């Protein structure tokens, strides 16, 4: 259970000098070096910040700081193998602190307020070096074992030190998300990683680069799921590329660069990412998803019903999910608002799990779409997903309906009065050259996109007829 971990960009006092989390004058301090000499751990053997002094291996030294040194060095070696820069050393910033050039860990009592943080000693431009302060014994924290906590803390916090070798103070969704991603790289069984990824699945309608306000934006940590998605698709090199890009850009622009280097785009990756997110937890089925999908929760849904009707803001790089209990028969999607840029998909539920989409579409204008192509959609449970798979400054807010013809009536575009009675549409086929009420880019098996325009036009014509003749009819 990672508690309020964060990178502190401001230059900080070391815990043996003072500061918010510091040793006390009564603490008796000792130091321990890791086997490879990469890490030095400073801890207290007596005093307010005394560490867990158990020595089960009989080495003559407490196991807790030994494990910190062991895992920290293993994590640093993993980063090197993946191709990341090493943390900036004290020598590179012109000082040797903590008594050696090794990377310093300090074990102090955080009192439940946090369990660790990376702080900076000095910077050269945007690149900074620093040290780690870590909880001294994890008493009162939720980790299964001390070693579980140590694995989590070392793999998360040291990645902040790696980030600082490219750019200190990266946007929180990248800084915390990739640090949480690092936990999984080091320990594929990391319960902390899965728990934090759930924060994204809990709030899927939020733009990935817009964590909420507040001191503990769990969502920012949860973006680890996106970084792991990219890793599953393109390998860890994409995260290395992201950090390299942070050298000259930040935030979404850095991701643009990393995606380009991987030969892909937001538009290619995002719809697949939010589709994978639908296949987690209790929704796990034949829909492609993560190898650890069963360790995650199901994505939070906006609404469930035998028809759907919602007035929703679709934020860029986010997705909204619904469950439709379709009674069987015709099934339509309609909106009177401009849905340009949005993509929708309908997934059937098969044997209790979600199966690949049977229909995906995008409308370029207000309109209605027959999802059954003039046929019937079998009765059953379906997942409906809408997403805005691109960078944008504003959300797209639309009111839409999904259901039979009666259910979508409130969402149909209202025809201009000048149109009434002048159909001029009777000769129009699916590819008729006249302006269509709803242009459609559709991806569905067994037919060309234009075929869907026919029932759409028929439906609109019927509505116009009603309008023309007035309520008395």
């Amino acid at each position, binding site marked *: 259970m990672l508690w309020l971990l964060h990178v502190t960009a401001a230059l900080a006092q070391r815990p043996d000098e003072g500061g918010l989390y510091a040793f006390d004058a009564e603490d008796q301090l000792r130091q321990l070096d890791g086997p490879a000499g990469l890490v030095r751990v400073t801890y207290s053997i007596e005093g307010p910040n005394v560490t867990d002094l158990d020595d089960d291996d009989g080495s003559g030294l407490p196991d807790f700081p030994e494990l910190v040194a062991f895992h920290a060095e293993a994590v640093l070696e993993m980063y090197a193998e993946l191709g990341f820069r090493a943390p900036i050393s004290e020598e590179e910033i012109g000082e040797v602190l903590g008594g050696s050039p090794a990377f310093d860990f300090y074990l102090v009592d955080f009192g439940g307020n946090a369990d660790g943080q990376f702080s900076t000693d000095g910077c050269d431009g945007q690149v900074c070096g620093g040290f780690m302060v870590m909880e001294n014994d994890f008493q009162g924290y939720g980790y299964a074992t001390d070693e579980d906590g140590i694995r989590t803390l070392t793999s998360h916090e040291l990645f902040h030190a790696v980030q600082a070798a490219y750019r200190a103070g990266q946007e929180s969704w990248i800084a915390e998300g990739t640090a949480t991603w690092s936990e999984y790289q080091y320990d594929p069984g990391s319960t902390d990683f899965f728990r934090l990824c759930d924060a994204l699945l809990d709030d899927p309608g939020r733009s990935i680069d817009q964590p909420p306000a507040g001191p503990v934006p769990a969502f920012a940590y949860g973006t680890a799921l996106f970084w792991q998605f990219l890793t599953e698709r393109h390998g860890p090199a994409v995260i290395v590329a992201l950090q390299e890009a942070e050298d000259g850009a930040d935030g979404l622009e850095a991701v643009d660069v990393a995606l380009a280097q991987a030969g892909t785009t937001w538009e290619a990756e995002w719809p697949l990412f939010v589709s994978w997110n639908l296949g987690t937890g209790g929704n796990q089925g034949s829909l492609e998803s993560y190898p650890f999908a069963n360790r995650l929760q199901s994505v939070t849904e906006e609404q469930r019903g035998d028809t759907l009707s919602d007035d929703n803001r679709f934020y860029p790089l986010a997705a909204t999910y619904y469950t439709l209990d379709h009674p069987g028969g015709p099934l339509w999607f309609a909106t009177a608002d401009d849905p340009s840029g949005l993509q929708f998909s309908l997934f059937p539920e098969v044997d209790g799990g979600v199966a690949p989409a049977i229909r995906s579409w995008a409308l370029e204008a207000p309109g209605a779409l027959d999802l059954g192509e003039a046929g019937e959609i079998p009765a059953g449970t379906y997942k409906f997903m809408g997403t805005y798979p691109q960078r944008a400054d*504003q959300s797209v807010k639309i009111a839409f309906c999904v259901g039979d013809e009666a259910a979508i009536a409130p969402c149909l575009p209202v025809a201009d009065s000048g149109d009434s009675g002048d159909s001029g549409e009777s000769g129009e086929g699916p590819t008729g050259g006249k302006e269509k009420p709803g242009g459609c880019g559709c991806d569905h098996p067994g037919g060309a996109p234009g075929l869907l325009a026919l029932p759409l036009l028929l439906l609109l014509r019927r509505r116009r007829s009603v309008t023309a003749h007035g309520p008395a009819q």
Partner: protein
Amino acid sequence: MVAMLVAMLGVLGCSGDGKDSGGSTGGTDSTGGGTEVEPICEQPAEVSCQDEMILDLSLHDDKVSDGAVETAEDGADFVTTVDASGGGYDRYTQEPWVYIRFTETGAERVDIDDETAFESMDWDMSLRRFIVRLNGGSSGPSCVGAAPLIRQNYADISEVPDGIPYAVDAYYTEDCTIINDSSGLPGSPQVSMSGWWEYPGCVKTTMTPFLIQRADGKVLKLVVESYYGENQLECNENDSTREPGGFYILRWRFL
């Protein structure tokens, strides 16, 4: 932080120049009843930056808070408890804000969702975790404003000072970039009531009293006595606590 806050707010919403209740509590009527004051605003204004605010403040359009709001009388004061915990520090973004209005008989919850609140003048204050918004400016369509009285104690305030300026929430720039307060906490907006707390490691109450002017012109004095329910002292004395937050105790009365 409070002094800086007053300087930074800059945007003054409503002025009390002659429109406030001026301490005319009418003898024994300590809840402001019976005093005629001019309304500050009567029609809702368009709230800008809604798109950004929904994300920044985690607003919801399909949930209404059921956080308990209870008011008791304590002498001439009302003491209102508000459960604005939002389900805890790791859940609150999934929960709606609590909306309340101050009435002659105490504070009561207004059961509306966050997006409906963009168009409603029925509420005066909205709370979730450590952020307290007022219905005006960036936060809502009304004109409820606040004035911190940083050099006074709540108990010593018996009337509304002449010409006191009330600030409405103003935490967005013209291009809808959020303006954070000086707490150092990420994404903590510069609301007009930011000065009730500081963050040395927990949410510590400053006991700064505020005058709050409602849309109808009536003014009340208010102090946030606690954020951790009955257990605020641990935080205030130790700068640290493991108590669950978001359990407000508000002391207030009309002037």
